[in-house]
């Protein structure tokens, strides 16, 4: 066998051995290897998951605190019965004020790994959960703490730091170096002084020794940094050792995930949902405006010019007044022109004159008709003429008095009112506008021809969403777009005519992806859209995603997260603030 082949075989064997290693520890097999603590400042805890529940167990000061939540929604489960197997038989945990369950557990103070068995009964759901809790040995923890940075690593760090220090000193003309040079110079001066003259030598020597000692120590104190002080590297700083009782704080872990203890999750009201793949109709966003339903709104206009006066009730309907179809809202009295007045006077006089003549004729005919001198037909003609003249006279009187009444054309609310008593209304001027507030439409401008615009929703500025029913599309161009009309379905209260809305209209093109509520997507500081995945009971991981608009309340996650994941839908914004 050639050496090369042997080497290849060896490599394969090695690979197999390596692969067999993890294969042995197949899914869920950690065989007693305690889960590494998420952070040094977080108390030891254990968690268990099932289809229905998520259980977190925290042993602390001889008490086992349990937090029970729904698996899918992360909703706390109050009023559940949690029975924990203890060495003294099964014990039921009692509910605490902060929404958890507590159980006195003195047996848990023993360091080591404890595997607990909890039977959870909440309503109809029954589940048996196994929770592993590792209680650290306080002595071991204390001994291990100072030796935490590996010695070799620490020495390396120290070495690099000293080298760096010297380099820095040289460049920065450190006073210690300068002092050392000065001392050498001073000593030289003293020595020459001593060599030149011996007078006063002891005094000079004394001064020289004194200066040397003082400066020398100063120089040394600066030259050697090590006084047993800890190395001050950012990466080597030991996390503060706090008491486990007060240390459970929401925090961002070094790997970027966010740790949020259960009590904090309850405070932030974090809720999740399970992502599901689905196909949805793509929607387009259109700018829109609320308009009144043309069949449920109307205007009140005067057909003649005239003076406005209130209806018989004495008051004009004001804004917001409810009116019914046929209600009299105002009256218009047409003014009579001066020339007309003289005309009418003339006609009046003529009529009065004729009436007087015909009246006398009728009287005369009536007397003669009895004698037969005048035919009965002549009397009848005269009476008819008299009646006609009376009618014409009466109509002439009435036309000066009767005004035009303005009536409401539809049921609704007065949306616009310009009526002032005594005002002169121009013919065709709008006096009132009446709108039915429960029947409003939305007119949107679309740049594409919407074919089957079903499933349309309108989003208001305050985040409210309205369901819309497609009514029709215009064909006439308006600002390079065509108007599309929708009827607002359901509750339309709080809307006003002319309000701007964003219309999301469904189109025919179908998209597949994961639909998530708009609030689930958070924009991070670098402008990236992320969702928070609930990976374990108290851990959330940010997942960068690509989102596309879907409708008023939801967005479509096209990429970044798969189906079957728990994603935070409520409180994601707060989660993003955890540092």
């Amino acid at each position, binding site marked *: 066998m050639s050496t090369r082949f042997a080497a290849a075989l060896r490599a394969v064997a090695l690979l197999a051995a390596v692969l*067999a290693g993890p294969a042995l520890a197949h899914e869920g097999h950690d065989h007693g290897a305690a889960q590494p603590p998420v952070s040094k400042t977080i108390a030891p805890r254990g968690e268990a998951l099932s289809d229905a529940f998520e259980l977190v167990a925290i042993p602390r000061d001889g008490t086992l605190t349990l937090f029970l939540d729904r698996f899918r929604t992360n909703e706390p489960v109050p009023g559940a019965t949690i029975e924990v197997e203890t060495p003294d038989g099964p014990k039921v945990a009692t509910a605490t004020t902060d929404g958890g369950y507590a159980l006195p557990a003195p047996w848990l103070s023993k360091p080591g790994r404890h595997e607990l068995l909890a039977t959870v009964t909440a309503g109809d759901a029954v589940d*048996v959960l196994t929770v592993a809790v590792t209680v650290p040995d306080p002595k071991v923890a204390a001994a291990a703490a100072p030796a935490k940075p590996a010695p070799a690593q620490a020495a390396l760090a120290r070495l690099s730091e000293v080298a760096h220090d010297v380099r820095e000193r040289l460049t920065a003309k450190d006073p210690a170096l300068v002092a050392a040079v000065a001392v050498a110079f001073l000593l030289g001066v003293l020595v020459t002084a001593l060599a030149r003259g011996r007078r006063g030598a002891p005094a000079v020597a004394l001064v020289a020794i004194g200066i040397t000692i003082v400066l020398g120590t100063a120089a040394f104190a600066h030259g050697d940094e090590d006084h047993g002080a800890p190395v001050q590297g950012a990466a080597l700083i030991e996390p503060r050792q706090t008491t486990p009782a007060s240390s459970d704080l929401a925090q961002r872990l070094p790997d970027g995930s966010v740790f949020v203890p259960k009590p904090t999750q309850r405070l932030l009201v974090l809720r999740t949902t399970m992502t599901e793949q689905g196909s949805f109709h793509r929607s387009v966003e259109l700018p829109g405006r609320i308009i009144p339903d043309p069949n449920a709104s109307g205007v009140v206009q005067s057909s003649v010019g005239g003076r406005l006066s209130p209806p018989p009730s004495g008051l004009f309907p004001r804004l917001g007044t409810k009116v019914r179809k046929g209600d009299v809202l105002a009256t218009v009295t047409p003014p009579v022109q001066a020339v007309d007045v003289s005309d009418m006077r003339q006609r009046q006089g003529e009529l009065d004159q004729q009436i007087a003549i015909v009246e006398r004729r009728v009287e005369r005919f009536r007397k003669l008709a009895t004698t037969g001198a005048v035919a009965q037909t002549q009397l009848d003609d005269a009476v008819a003429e008299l009646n006609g003249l009376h009618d014409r006279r009466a109509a002439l009187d009435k036309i000066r008095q009767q005004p035009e009444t303005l009536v409401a054309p539809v049921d609704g609310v007065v949306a616009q009112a310009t009526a002032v008593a005594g005002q002169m209304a121009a013919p065709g001027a709008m006096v009132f506008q009446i709108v039915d507030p429960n029947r409003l439409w939305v007119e949107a401008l679309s740049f594409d021809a919407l074919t089957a615009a079903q499933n349309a929703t309108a989003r208001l500025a305050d985040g409210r969403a309205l369901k819309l029913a497609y009514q029709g599309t215009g064909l006439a161009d308006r600002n390079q777009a065509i108007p599309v009309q929708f009827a607002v379905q359901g509750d339309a209260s709080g809307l006003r005519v002319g309000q701007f809305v964003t219309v999301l209209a469904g189109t025919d093109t179908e998209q597949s992806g994961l639909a998530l509520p708009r609030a689930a997507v958070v924009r991070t500081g670098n402008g990236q859209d992320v969702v928070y995945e609930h990976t374990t009971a108290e851990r959330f991981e940010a997942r960068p995603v690509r989102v596309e608009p879907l409708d008023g309340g939801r967005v479509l996650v096209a990429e970044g997260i798969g189906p079957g994941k728990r994603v935070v839908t409520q409180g994601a914004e707060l989660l993003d603030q955890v540092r």
Partner: protein
Amino acid sequence: MILPRVTLVAGLLAATTVYAHETSGQHGGRVADAGKFHVELVAKGETVDVFVSDEGQKPVPAAGFKGTAILVVGGKPTRVPLEPADGNRLTGKAAAALGDSPKGAVQLTGPDGATASGKFN
């Protein structure tokens, strides 16, 4: 030259046995992990048998062990205390007949007082 071959064969064998045991155990029951042990749960009628073995599927003597099985039967949890029997078997009797492969969990307390539990779905 022999050692790599042995490693290769052993590795492949280990991988296959691992896949085999996920589904069923040597006694026809279901196998789950409980701490550093593997436990096999066999529920037949009212009897609950639990077989304890180590990571390498070698039987572990049941003497000194104590156990509790909590099984969900008809939507209600049933607690079955387990006592060591022959070999690596612990056994207990439930009050009512257990259905086919009931959901639940088994907790074992070893001779050293350490607890281990395994979950069966």
